[in-house]
């Protein structure tokens, strides 16, 4: 019997009951990918052989009674920005076409140690720069809810794989919303852990002070199980937090928000928000109140400057980080005719290897960091970052968690904003402040928008290293929504054509 429409928790139970093997479960997902991914294009690379070998290993562990974790034998889709030894890693860029990393990222090491089966690498905006996955050099991913719409970005491939039942678990990375915004527009769950909560070792860097890998799944509990599997201190990441991982699984199961104070951020629900998104958001607030939470309004005036500051800080860091793509040690090399010097070859390679958005951000970052402009742009953006942190500190002084819609609108059409970078950047207005302050953020589906029938995301933010709080609220809201709506949002996705 096919299990692809079940949750990871149910799959793990079936594996424990021996009603299915990990090899069978993996094969079901590989078959699903073969059947639907021609239309979705969630995957850039499917590692059938490697996945089945891992699954076979997993079955041996289960049989011997030595299951390595609660997720032993569960399949997962990995964003193509994390290295996995010997498996192609492109970051959605021509620059890294054909590169097979010689080492595992810490996230992958932890997944392997937990017995999780890695199915393949998922599509993304080039070097994680974008909000629609249209910036991938390998073509866009399509939203399983409506194939002519974007699946969000940059982690559109991971989110679409979950919504299309190609995998029950996925890994994303979130620099300005790249886990949460795709989760919101595909009706799935995504968490950006506290900065430093999950190791960045082997995560190809975009903006190092903002980048954070995190778990994605269809339910809050599945997301929590994956969170615990990948989180924790890593001496190979100098910004890794040396403290115990928050108890997110227990929090996801708690189903109780009595006495909690939930702060609604006034600035993240005004003009520019779709009516159906706001209606769904307010319905969720009512449900949380019914569950015994107290709703309070908070004001974070500096958030209005969040996008402007982000589009100075992230490109500045990117212009430095992406200097590593010099055509000397890995990736493609163009124009090496034996006559041209290293700098000429480098310049020719970067012209061909980088796409439009990446070039735009490198130039913007180089400008913002250049002498004469540094104080006015990068320096000012860093001050806004301080103001955003202060706004959060004040808000968390009166509320245990903060909430907002995850995105201002539901999924927009492919091509609609592709030639308007400023319109595209607005997609992250709600998610960026979390990255600037280094705190935790979750998006979970709160229903379908009445105006277009597409999924809406509800964002929960918690203070640094208090990630358990967002799981506690998320788990409670998810259960209340399932009661009210009859079934989970992700279970209402339209049937896909099977080839």
């Amino acid at each position: 019997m096919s299990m692809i429409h079940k949750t990871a928790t149910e799959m793990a139970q079936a594996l424990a009951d021996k009603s299915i093997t990990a090899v069978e479960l993996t094969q079901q997902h590989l078959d699903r990918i073969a059947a639907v991914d021609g239309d979705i294009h969630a995957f850039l690379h499917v590692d059938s052989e490697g996945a089945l070998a891992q699954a076979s290993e997993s079955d041996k562990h289960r049989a011997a009674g030595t299951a390595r974790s609660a997720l032993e034998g569960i399949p997962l889709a990995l964003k193509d920005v994390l290295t996995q030894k010997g498996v192609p890693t492109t970051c959605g860029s021509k620059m890294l076409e054909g590169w097979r990393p010689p080492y595992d990222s810490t996230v992958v090491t932890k997944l392997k140690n937990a017995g999780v089966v890695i199915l393949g690498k998922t599509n993304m905006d080039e070097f994680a720069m974008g909000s629609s996955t249209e910036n991938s050099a390998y073509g866009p991913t399509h939203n399983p809810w409506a194939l002519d719409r974007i699946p969000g970005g940059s982690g559109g491939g991971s989110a679409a794989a979950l919504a299309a039942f190609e995998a029950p678990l996925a890994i994303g990375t979130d620099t300005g919303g790249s886990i949460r915004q795709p989760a919101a527009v595909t009706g799935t769950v995504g968490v950006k852990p506290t900065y430093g909560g999950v190791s960045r070792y082997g995560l190809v860097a975009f903006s190092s002070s903002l980048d954070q890998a995190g778990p994605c799944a269809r339910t809050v509990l599945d997301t929590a199980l994956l969170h615990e599997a990948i989180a924790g201190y890593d001496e190979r990441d100098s910004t890794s937090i040396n403290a115990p991982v928050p108890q997110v699984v227990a929090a996801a199961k708690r189903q109780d928000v009595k006495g909690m104070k939930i702060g609604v951020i006034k600035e993240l629900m005004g003009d520019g928000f779709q009516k159906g998104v706001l209606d769904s958001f307010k319905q969720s607030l009512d449900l949380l109140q019914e569950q015994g939470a107290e709703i309070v309004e908070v004001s974070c005036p500096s958030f209005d400057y969040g996008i402007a500051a982000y589009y100075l800080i992230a490109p500045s860091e990117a212009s430095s980080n992406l200097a590593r793509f010099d055509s000397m040690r890995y990736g493609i090399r163009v124009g090496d005719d034996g006559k041209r010097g290293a700098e000429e070859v480098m310049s020719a390679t970067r012209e061909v290897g980088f796409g439009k958005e990446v070039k735009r951000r490198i130039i913007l970052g180089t400008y913002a960091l250049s002498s004469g402009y540094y104080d006015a742009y990068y320096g000012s953006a860093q001050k806004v970052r301080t103001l955003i942190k202060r706004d959060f500190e004040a808000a968390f002084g009166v509320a245990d968690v903060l909430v907002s819609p995850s995105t201002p609108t539901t999924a927009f059409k492919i091509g609609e904003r592709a030639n308007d970078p400023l319109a595209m950047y607005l997609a992250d207005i709600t998610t960026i402040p979390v990255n600037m302050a280094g705190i935790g953020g979750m998006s979970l589906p709160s229903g379908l928008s009445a105006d277009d029938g597409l999924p809406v995301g509800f964002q929960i933010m918690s203070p640094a290293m208090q990630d358990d709080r967002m799981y506690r609220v998320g788990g409670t809201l998810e259960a209340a929504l399932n009661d009210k709506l009859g079934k989970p949002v992700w279970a209402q996705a339209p049937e896909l054509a099977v080839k």
Partner: protein
Amino acid sequence: MAAISREEVAHLARLSRIEMTPDELDHLASEMQLILGAVARVQEVAAADIPPTSHALPMTNVFRPDVTKPSLSPEDALSGAPAREEDRFKVPQILGDAE
């Protein structure tokens, strides 16, 4: 806000080691104008007495013990090289005129 010229964009492209076509430079110059106009808003609230934040977490001088550990073999380290010679990365000429 000062206008950004096509020549400035060309200079930034040179600094970034990206060999852009004339069309790309034209297009990017107009886009940069728009984007810089939007992001310049940060100056409205960036008062002199606000300290900058470069990193969200209070962290300084993270050290590890200085001990030797297994690392990549030469074969692994060179596995992605566009060109190699023996156990080295082979790169185009760096100093002086090529040929």
